[in-house]
């Protein structure tokens, strides 16, 4: 029998608020590191030097080709067994952060590479003709334009990351899922506490949806003015998929 009183009892408890906080900061740090790792991997992969592109390809192949859960278990249980020197460094937190970041790096690498490739090659030529070196041209000219292509899938990745953190429950990290599991099993109220966990996941992903659509608007190449922004479809309308003004979602005219 479903007991609403248990849901109510736990819904705004310190226990779940702190578990949600753990879920959030693990996701944020992992995603941030993943983007940084992904950026370097993408640039390496696109290099014309094999000693840069091959390791990047191997990394992406390895981390995209095996389950994150296995990577996490390997890191937490496997590595300290084989390399005892690692024992003091591998905690539940470091293992979760490292596994999520490294795995995410492989996915972000492909997203960032697609973003960079989408920028007109003429942009790099123009930057070079002005005396810019590769790194400066990347930072000032290419990446700001690639960002428009990168941000939407990046948003999806972070949405996924918020939920992927639940895998850390297998190594006993008290994020939302493990908290619900442990306290649910103690009081025989699995269902109720998993509902509470679900509630928090939905809160986090929904908030993120709003932040994401705000960022995407800021990156809009057409730089809509305030009044034009008001006329734009809301995030919910866009998510529901009707009344979408497609021209706001693609690149600037020059890139089409």
């Amino acid at each position, binding site marked *: 029998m479903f007991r609403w009183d248990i849901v109510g009892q736990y819904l705004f408890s310190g226990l779940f608020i702190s578990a949600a906080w753990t879920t959030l900061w693990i996701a944020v740090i992992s995603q941030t590191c993943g983007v940084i790792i992904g950026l370097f991997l993408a640039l390496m992969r696109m290099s014309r030097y094999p000693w840069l592109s091959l390791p990047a390809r191997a990394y992406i192949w390895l981390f995209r080709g095996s389950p994150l859960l296995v990577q996490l278990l390997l890191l937490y249980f496997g590595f300290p067994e084989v390399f005892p020197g690692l024992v003091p460094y591998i905690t539940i937190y470091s293992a979760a952060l490292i596994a999520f970041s490294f795995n995410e790096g492989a996915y972000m690498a492909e997203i960032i590479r697609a973003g960079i490739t989408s920028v007109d090659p003429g*942009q790099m030529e123009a*930057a070079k*003709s002005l005396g*810019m070196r590769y790194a400066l041209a990347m930072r*000032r000219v290419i990446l700001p*334009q690639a960002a428009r292509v990168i941000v939407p899938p990046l948003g999806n990745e972070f949405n996924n990351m918020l939920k992927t953190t639940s895998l850390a429950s297998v190594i006993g990290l008290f994020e939302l899922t493990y908290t619900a599991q442990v306290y649910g099993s103690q009081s025989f109220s699995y269902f109720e506490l998993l509902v509470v966990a679900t509630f928090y996941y939905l809160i986090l992903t929904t908030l993120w949806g709003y932040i994401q659509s705000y960022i995407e608007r800021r990156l809009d190449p057409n730089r809509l003015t305030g009044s034009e922004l008001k006329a734009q479809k809301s995030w919910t309308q866009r998510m529901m998929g009707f009344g979408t003004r497609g021209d706001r979602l693609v690149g600037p005219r020059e890139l089409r």
Partner: protein
Amino acid sequence: MDIQRINGIEMVRAEKIVKHFGSLTVLDGIDLTVKRGQVVVIIGPSGSGKTTLLRCINHLEKIDSGRIYIEGEMIGYREVNGRLIEDREATIARIRSQIGFVFQRFNLFPHMTALENVIEAPIHVLHQPKAEVKERAVALLEKVGLADKADSYPHKLSGGQQQRVAIARALAMNPKLMLFDEATSALDPELVGEVLKVMDQLAKEGMTMIVVTHEMGFAREVADEVIFMDKAVIVEEGSPEQIFDHPQNERTQEFLSMIL
């Protein structure tokens, strides 16, 4: 100005440039000398290699053999034991920063306003003080007739306006040489004039220019020297009068009869 042109030192010297795209030879032993203050216009049918030649001069395109010197300094390569080795990125970038390049497709940075496009490189490449660069950029935009468009993004500008911003952007680096790669070919006919006017003015101010174009009127009026290229080689070169009124080579005559 004429004295400067006559006595001008060598700005560009290209020796026996050879360039292949796969099995296709696009430049087959090109020799070219451009003196400071000179305006050289390169004409020829499409696919003749003129754009590639221009792109080789600031090393946007690698060459397979030959040498290109900018004011006596080799661009793109170092010579080690008689072999050419591609130069360090920093060295290539430094030489490029002194050469303005205007593209057929403008290639303005779409995420920056006209003014931001113009001040970008002087600030981040030459590390000049922002206030000073801004002042100069405003003056340059005024010079190309776009003072009122400083805060517009490229996609709000017409092709002609974009190209004029692109010229201002190149000029902001105080280049000693300007390369124009079919700067008006992507423009609607009614917008060609405004860009040619800016180029004409630049030439009159004594800027050294190499211009690849299909605008024969411009070539005749502004060029000190006209080069006719066809099938990867320079077929004929001389003053506008020589090339347009008394072409010696059969291929030049044929090309001009088709165009004029």
